[in-house]
């Protein structure tokens, strides 16, 4: 089966700065790949290349075997669920309007949208009777992020992009949402590319982990390979794990 997403020797330049250098990897349908890296490692840039928010300065990004430069970007983006830190909800839309946005843009009948929104809100644990008519400012950070996830799922896209989706949450809420995400992803069979700087999140959510360092992919492999890898940057992330473990004794 051909990969859903394929980076072929992708480089990105912003001004005189190389953000990504010669990045190549594939993402198969049904898998979750986590890109792990420090701030400024280029992981968000890589993510934005997938839905054409950024285009490569060299190489190409193929989605379903078609280069992002050849895709109708509006159509491509509506096929990809997008979740960012702080959710990026529309402050002037109710929860229901936020969740129903992409189906509405796609011209679904409003009765179908209503039903879809109800189902999704129930699925993410926000009872529609109580939450549908609220505005984002009337929600907690965790609730907003749940709505962000529901919105990304609304048009039933095969593929999700998540940029530090749980980064701004308190640790307890973060773990709750991580598990909710795993459940949803597995029940709905979504493919996902997730970006994080949290090594534990990478190990929890990723089928495979890619480590970006200064715009280069220095490691790509499964969990156990990750834990055995000897690359300097990967070992720097190992240290985070050991440090936490030492603390907890």
């Amino acid at each position, binding site marked *: 089966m051909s990969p859903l997403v394929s980076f072929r020797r992708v480089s990105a330049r912003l001004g005189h700065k190389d953000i990504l250098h010669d990045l190549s990897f594939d993402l198969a349908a049904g898998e979750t790949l986590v890109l792990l890296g420090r701030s400024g490692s280029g992981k968000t840039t890589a993510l934005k290349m997938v*839905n054409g*928010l950024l285009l490569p300065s060299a190489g190409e990004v193929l989605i379903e075997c078609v280069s992002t430069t050849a895709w109708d970007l*509006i*159509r*491509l*983006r*509506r096929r*990809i669920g*997008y979740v*960012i*830190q*702080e*959710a*990026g*909800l*529309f*402050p*002037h839309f109710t929860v229901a309007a936020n969740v129903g*946005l*992409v189906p509405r*843009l796609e011209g679904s009948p409003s009765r179908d949208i209503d039903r879809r929104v109800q189902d999704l809100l129930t699925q993410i644990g926000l009872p529609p009777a109580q939450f549908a008519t609220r*505005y984002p*400012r009337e929600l907690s950070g965790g609730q907003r992020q749940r709505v962000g996830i529901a*919105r990304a799922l609304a048009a039933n896209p095969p593929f999700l*992009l998540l940029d530090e989706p749980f980064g701004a949450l308190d640790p307890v809420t973060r773990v709750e949402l991580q598990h909710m995400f795993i459940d949803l992803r597995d029940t709905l069979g979504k493919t996902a590319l997730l970006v994080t700087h949290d090594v534990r999140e990478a190990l929890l959510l990723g089928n495979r982990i890619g480590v970006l360092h200064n715009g280069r992919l220095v490691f790509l492999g499964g969990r156990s390979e990750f834990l055995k890898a000897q690359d300097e940057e990967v070992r720097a992330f190992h240290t985070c794990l050991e440090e936490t473990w030492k603390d907890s004794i």
Partner: protein
Amino acid sequence: MSSMLAQDIFDLTLEHLYLVGVSMSIAAALAIPVGILLTRRRFLQGWVLGFANVMQTVPSLALFGFLIPLPFLGGIGKHTAIVALVLYALLPILRNTLTGILGVDPTVRESAIAMGMTGRQLLLEVELPLATRTILAGLRIATVTTIGTATIAAAIGGGGLGVFIFRGLASVDTTLLLAGAVPAAFIAVAADRGLEWLEQKLSPV
């Protein structure tokens, strides 16, 4: 005598409102779309804002005077006054439209684009609604200023409440001065309150 004065106040107030209403409608119809365009074509910002800025700095009496000899735009009468008032009102509306739209939270704009909104949908569904408050504030500032500046229109035969003020000045008649100044001040306060209410009412957040 006093009933004649009352009738004059009423007529000139209407004329004043007409001057302000027409000028503000034209200024808004020009400045809001141009302001939107400037958010899309950043390189034009310097030129357009520069022009509007210079217009604002020309003393108002002089601007009315400069316009008189110009063909089409100038001459004596209401339309010259309206041209001058429009030129004055442009800057606050333009600047607030620009600030309002550019002030939309970048993460909100980015997620709108990432959700697959077209440029038009982004503008109409996200940027303009979220900028409404700022744009209306610009309109409010421009309107209140225009109500005051419009009194000078009488100097070039534009009519309005300025007629009383200039007549009062010429004949050193305080009653006439007040007959022009007090209604103008009332209109300004009413417009300020009214537009403030509208701002609250229309603001989506």
